């Protein structure tokens, strides 16, 4: 047990910090998905061209071939520099790419990984269905083999950025007779294929980030199957463990920055009792301090998880502990912000010297509601912790 950092890691951190300080885009990303995607892709391309894309991705596919520890260092420096967190490119960078690295064929990796790293296109996720949310294995979107193709019909839902994505990690039922976990296949779906219809869904936060996707006899080459036919459940578990585990490494640093910003707000605005700065209110101070402690705990859990993995890229079911704490903490922090500034932000009026924020604190709080739904609801995460970490019966 030690905090020793190798010379290579220290050098990597220094170089990353220097490059990010000079190159991070300063423009606020627009809410419109298409416009924001274009900015993201340009920024991704810039990272690739300068040799910073895919830190722990294999070098033969355009990555840097470094360790998970260095990937974490990059995420930390990235967030500390205030670089934009991926939105439309989240799926490709954070879980489709890692899934292909772990489970894809050489041809799949050679085709897709460089495209993701170069910022040529984005991916989306087609897992949930209207009748298969938490009970993902109930999915019914059918795929029938026809020659060297799968023919897919059905519907997916909650697919973020489906309207701008080029590829999709798609789960389909290829054997309706088999036990339900054994008849599922994970396949790469080209979103430009005939028979696909995408309908955006308006979220409670106003933006149309996620979509329904309808498939009407969509033809997908069998060569796009990742893992074996009917073994898609195990591939999906890899995807989800990336989505719940390592994908949040960068976000926890962003959350720490958000909290630091909130502490600064609490120093200068008048608190709920109308008599003194918010930070002098004992209850506010306690909640801020507790949130800070929990943000530190979250980081420690990430470091422990990286240590435990000992170089294995795929997090275990312990990732769900990180996901639960992260989601609920994001909600606690943004709710605390709403309590400090007021739901309409009235406490901020006329207070000089505060950095402008892309979204209001109330919008961030409302947005945070998704943090305990996406990537598996907090209830499902607790089932996973109970059953797969603690060994409790189903």
């Amino acid at each position, binding site marked *: 047990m030690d905090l020793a950092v190798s010379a290579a890691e220290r050098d990597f951190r220094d170089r990353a910090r220097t490059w990010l300080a000079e190159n991070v885009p300063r423009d606020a990303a627009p809410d419109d998905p298409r416009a924001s995607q274009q900015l993201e892709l340009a920024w991704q391309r810039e990272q690739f061209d300068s040799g910073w894309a895919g830190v722990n991705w294999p070098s033969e596919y355009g990555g840097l071939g470094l360790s998970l520890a260095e990937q974490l260092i990059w995420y930390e420096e990235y967030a500390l520099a205030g670089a934009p967190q991926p939105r439309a490119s989240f799926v490709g960078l954070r879980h489709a790419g890692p899934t292909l690295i772990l489970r894809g064929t050489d041809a799949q990796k050679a085709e897709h990984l460089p495209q993701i790293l170069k910022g040529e296109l984005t991916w989306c996720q087609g897992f949930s269905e209207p009748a298969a949310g938490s009970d993902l294995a109930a999915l019914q979107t059918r795929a029938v083999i026809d020659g060297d193709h799968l023919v897919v019909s059905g519907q997916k839902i909650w697919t973020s950025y489906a309207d701008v994505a080029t590829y999709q990690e798609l789960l389909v039922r290829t054997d309706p007779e088999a036990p339900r976990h054994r008849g599922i296949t994970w396949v790469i779906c080209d979103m430009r294929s005939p028979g696909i219809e995408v309908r955006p869904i308006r979220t409670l936060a106003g933006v149309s980030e996620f979509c329904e996707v309808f498939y009407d006899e969509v033809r997908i080459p069998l060569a796009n199957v990742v893992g074996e036919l009917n073994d898609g459940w195990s591939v999906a578990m890899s995807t989800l463990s990336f989505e719940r585990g390592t994908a949040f490494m960068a976000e926890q640093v962003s959350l720490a920055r958000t909290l630091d910003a909130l502490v600064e707000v609490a120093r200068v605005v008048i608190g709920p009792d109308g008599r003194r700065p918010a930070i002098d209110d004992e209850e506010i101070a306690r909640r801020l301090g*507790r949130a800070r402690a929990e943000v530190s705990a979250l980081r420690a859990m990430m470091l422990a998880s990286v240590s435990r993995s000992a170089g294995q890229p795929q997090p275990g079911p312990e990732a769900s502990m990180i996901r639960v704490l992260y989601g609920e903490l994001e909600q606690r922090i943004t709710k605390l912000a709403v309590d400090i500034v007021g739901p309409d932000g009235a406490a901020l009026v006329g207070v000089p010297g505060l950095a402008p924020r892309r979204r209001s604190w109330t919008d961030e709080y409302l947005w945070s509601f998704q943090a305990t739904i996406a990537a598996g609801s907090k209830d499902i995460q607790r089932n996973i912790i109970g059953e797969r970490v603690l060994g409790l019966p189903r």
Partner: protein
Amino acid sequence: MNLMPTAEQEALAGAAARFLAGGAAGAGAGAGAAAWSDMADLGWFGIGLPPELGGAGGSLADQVLLFRELGRGLAPGPLLGTVLGARLAAFARRDPLARSMIDGEVTAALAEPWRDPSASISGNRVSGRFRVLELDDADLVMFLAPDGVALVNAQALRRHASIHPLDGPDPSVPVSLAEVADSSALTTEVVVTGPPAVELGARGRAVAAALLVGILEACRDMSVAYVKSREQFGKPIGSFQAVKHRCADMAVRAESAGSLLFLAALSLEDGLPDADRLVSSAKALASEYAVQSAHDNVQNHGGVGFTAECPAHLYAKRALAWSVTLGSPDVLFAEVAR
């Protein structure tokens, strides 16, 4: 960077767990004294101190791993005061005094200011109102205040202070309130102020947090074992989501507080700038979480959990006693916010 224990550290913790599971922490004064001398023989009071003083060497991380086991095993005795006292004596080059604590011949109770902003350790004088743990048979009292740390003869404290024995939550952790008037301020055996005192206070918080993390893990494991075997409605109650999720929350608390504790202890040992904040965060979270998990553990055991026979209450009582020792969550969270 690696937050996992080394094989050597696993061995230390494993040996401690086996020793404590063997009933060494048994009840009764005689058993306590025997256990104390066994623990001293195992080198547990000299971790992080040099072999010339009879110390066992090693790091704060080693000490934290050991104290996690002591917390899990509900080990008896003035552990915190004695190891901090030994460290203070060693720092002050009072070698024979340090050696006597490391060897288990001399014990030190633990005292810290109790809701008294004027409590102070200055010059070689101690005054104010203090909460004292395990004063009963102690030879010395280890005082920790924000401005200094000191060892005081326990007899002198008994003579000069007005001492109110309290009805503490845990009968095996005696607590009293000691009021030392300015006019009869106590003379110290050893006193240190300034940065070394602050550092010793932070170490104390880390070690206290370790005891609480041990409780967190013990409660989690005890609950998990019980809800796997206890059946109602024809199946183990651990299959019901309400129970399962309570256990999941206990696991998240243990994992998060434990990971933070190790990060904090390593940061403190390395003298990193954010070490104090991390240590205070770890102690505050471990305190709050341990009280919650100990309560949940009783809940998971149902009616059985409410009986004296079921050990669940022991963790609840010990968690309460230690949760306000060396920094309550209220004080520490406010400190971390600033």
